[in-house]
């Protein structure tokens, strides 16, 4: 579904990604792991068209989407849930969700998608008229994910959903991601919370200093020496 080949990206003149290749298969959950500053967010932003790609290629469902405008990429069926719960703090929950439906196609599907979002995250329905800035951290993250779903994406890219959240909330969020996946949405997950991510994902890549150093299905990665030592503290 998504294929990234030999991607090279620089940020403010500093090279961040070196020949990164990865593949996300239809219907799966793929995790992208790695320490702070490895380039995980940069990779997502480059896929989304938010950063300029130096060389390499991004293909989505067989079409090359490298360096397209983000609005085109959303229309094609990719949603990006930014890190740090990038909600619009002075707009209501409902308005935030409406802004998720940017393309003509998703605006037509808005009512149905709203219902789906409220089913997944009932708390958002309760807080519908509240300003997004007044939500708790967990609720903001739910809102950010729900807003991503409003575009009816086929691929949802979630950046550090668990950052700074209580473990109970993290479990809830990962549950929700599983449900979203079960509804047929492919998910690319960037995470520092390695244990949880390996539990929920089918396959994972490990990015360190801008290079993919490990890849494989999660079952085998859990037993891998490098993962155990560097990420699980075993």
């Amino acid at each position, binding site marked *: 579904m998504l294929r990234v080949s030999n991607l090279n990206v620089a940020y403010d003149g500093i090279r961040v990604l070196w020949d990164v290749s990865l593949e996300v298969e239809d219907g799966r959950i793929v995790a992208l792991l790695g320490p702070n500053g490895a380039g995980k967010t940069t990779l997502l932003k480059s896929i989304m068209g938010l950063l300029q790609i130096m060389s390499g290629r991004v293909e989505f469902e067989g079409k090359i989407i490298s360096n397209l405008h983000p609005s085109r990429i959303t229309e094609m069926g990719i949603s990006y849930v930014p890190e740090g719960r990038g909600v*619009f703090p002075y707009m209501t929950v409902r308005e935030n969700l409406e802004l998720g439906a940017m393309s003509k196609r998703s605006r037509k599907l808005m009512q149905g998608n709203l219902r789906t979002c409220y089913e997944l995250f009932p708390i958002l329905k309760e807080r519908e008229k509240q300003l997004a800035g007044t939500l708790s951290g967990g609720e903001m993250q739910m809102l950010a994910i729900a807003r991503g779903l409003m575009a009816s994406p086929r691929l949802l890219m979630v950046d550090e959903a668990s950052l700074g959240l209580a473990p109970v909330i993290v479990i809830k969020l990962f549950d929700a991601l599983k449900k979203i996946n079960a509804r047929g949405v492919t998910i690319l997950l960037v995470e520092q919370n390695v244990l949880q991510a390996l539990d929920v994902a089918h396959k994972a890549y490990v990015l360190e200093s801008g290079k993919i150093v490990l890849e494989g299905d999660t079952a085998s990665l859990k037993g891998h020496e490098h993962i155990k030592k560097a990420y699980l503290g075993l």
Partner: protein
Amino acid sequence: MLPLYHVDIVINGVLMGAIYALIAVGLNLIYGVSRILNLAHGDLLMLGCVVTYLVYNILGQTPLMALLVIAPLFFLIGGLVNISLIRPLMKFGLERAAVTSVIVTLGVSFIIVDLVLFGSARAGISTFGVSYMLPSVKIFDIYLSSVRLLSLLSILFITIILRLFITRTFLGKKIRALSQNREAALALGVDDSKVSLITFGLGSALAAIAGVFIIMLTAIQATIGMTLTFKALVIIILGGMGSFFGAVAGGLLLGLAESYTMLYLGGMWIPVIDVIILFIVLMSRPRGLFGKEA
């Protein structure tokens, strides 16, 4: 009871404040969406005064009729400035564009002022004014200028429409989204160059509309623009960056204060009072009256 002339002072203050608010709201919109400080904002206002002057003195139409021409005309002018001068800067990234745009819009300001000075010198005009009058209205024994009341009502109407546009329409929501969290808005697929174009047009139209109301109050000179740009900046900072109500509150506060300064101290004290108010507000509320984010 307070002497009756206070009614007049307050009405003048509120009207001036409402005009300031129009100027500031436009500048604030543009800044919010594209992080660009349009230093030619006040000069577009001055140009709006000049067009009103021409419409009134040459075509013989009322200033309020001029509004109908000025709003769309300056929307176009603002849009043109955006496409031809601002959009090329955006290629260098938002931060660098924010700095270079100061130079570019300063250049636009100089060009507008010099063209008007050049044109008016040839025509032998040094100040622009319209002598538009309507019969006064009498309310509770007080005679009030109907031009001022009409201006006040028109500005109120324009502000309400603008507020509805920003809060209720999808385009308005995109404008707010871009100013509250630009990156998230882009990630959702907001077409920032289109929204920036429209906000530039809208902000310029608001500046020129403010010009129509100013020239009905007082005659102006071609060099008035920069003073008003800075006044709008003070108001935005006073009210809180990016806040609609902040710009309105800041405008009213300054307008009223200036009106009373004029009465008790004299016009030359106005800039001093402006700075003192700014100082006091920022000491107690560093983000302005309605300031939100850092």
